[in-house]
């Protein structure tokens, strides 16, 4: 699914459902608001952000973490690029916190984590490459993403685990674009850990611009 705003002068809107395991490439104009709704709860939404006019200027998870001096993302978090440009701000969040340390699943990392039997299961980075291609986003441009609604506790002793989600049906997060953006989404198909409650489900995208 590729969604592009049709005109810059009239209000466009987006209201669509992304099925479990599917993805989307959404063009959000500067000032536009994109809401992601966790329709059934506990669904990880792997998301990347790119300056729509220069995809090398892309979301940087660890620069974002450092700049806010905190691991988890929530309302007020500024999502910055490797150049420290502000790409978007989280302007509403009924879930409470979101991960950006855990990255996206891939067929190859599934093999390392769970074993050879997962090599041909669908994975987020397959979705990123498929939908990203339309914007020229290839393997080199796949950065470390945001995992909306995903719960990855990081502890003071330096531990990290994937846990059951904090989200619930109808919870949502909204970002406001600080410049024209490509937002690349994979509605995570992972079934080998609790990030999707062991049961991937659809999400809704609502755009206002």
């Amino acid at each position, binding site marked *: 699914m590729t969604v592009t705003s049709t005109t810059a002068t009239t209000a466009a809107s987006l209201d669509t459902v992304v099925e479990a395991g599917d993805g989307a490439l959404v063009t959000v104009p500067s000032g536009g608001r994109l809401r992601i709704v966790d329709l059934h709860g506990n669904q990880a939404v792997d998301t990347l952000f790119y300056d729509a006019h220069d*995809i*090398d*200027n*892309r979301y*940087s*998870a*660890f*620069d974002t*973490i*450092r700049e806010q*001096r*905190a*691991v*988890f993302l*929530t309302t007020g978090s500024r999502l910055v690029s*490797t*150049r*420290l440009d502000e790409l978007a701000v989280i302007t509403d969040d009924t879930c409470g*916190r979101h991960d950006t*340390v*855990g*990255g*996206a699943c*891939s067929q*190859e*990392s599934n*093999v*390392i*984590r769970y*074993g050879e039997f997962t090599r041909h299961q669908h994975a987020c980075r397959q979705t990123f490459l498929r939908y990203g291609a339309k914007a020229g986003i290839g*393997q*080199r*441009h*796949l*950065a*470390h993403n945001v995992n909306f609604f995903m719960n*990855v*506790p*990081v*502890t*003071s002793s*330096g*531990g*990290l*685990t*994937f846990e059951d989600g904090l989200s619930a049906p109808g919870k949502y997060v909204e970002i406001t674009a600080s410049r024209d953006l490509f937002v690349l989404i994979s509605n995570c198909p992972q079934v080998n850990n609790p990030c999707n409650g062991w049961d991937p489900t659809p999400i809704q995208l609502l755009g206002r611009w």
Partner: protein
Amino acid sequence: MTPAATPNPTLTPAHTHEVPGAVAWSAPVRAGRTVTLTALADGANATMLMIGADRLDRLNIPDTLKSQMSARIKPGMVLMSDRGLALATVTASSLDWHDCLTGALPDQLLLLELTKHGFGEADLHACINFFSKVSVADDPRASLTYVPDHAHAGDTVTLRADQDLLIFLSTAPHALSDEPAAGVAVQIETPAHTDDPELREEATRALRLTRELIA
């Protein structure tokens, strides 16, 4: 008369280099060799990026962390690539915490090193800040605080290359530190022993795949 074929250690001499503070440096490292970094002053920081033998497959910090249930880099971890292979193994360190959660400030010198090898901004993947520690609070947002006085002159970390690598290193101070830039000594050599340290099952799987496929 043919001389006896005895191993000649001078065929693979160790490479040593002192990287001054606030510069960037890069080098190729052959599979099987070790890279030892030594802090030359208190508060040193060595930001590292790593790219694998095919010049596309980069160090992937999220995959490295989640497969080994850690939010820091420490001895006994395999540094994993985007495509699930072992790039290097942390075989020893005098420190049990090297930061990998807070990235690095935009660094033109580091970007130039990438450019020398044909890479660019798109390859600014997550890095490791060797010798630096940023502590995580057990509060609702997992707040972060730079820990001064973590590394001291003489602290070391040793990595074993598990495939042919390019390593990129910056000695700019850690982004959250107000300490002055410090130098780091690098030694690249062929080790006498190559045993794996004790590793998690996931790390062993990455090493096995790497040896089967490309090492």
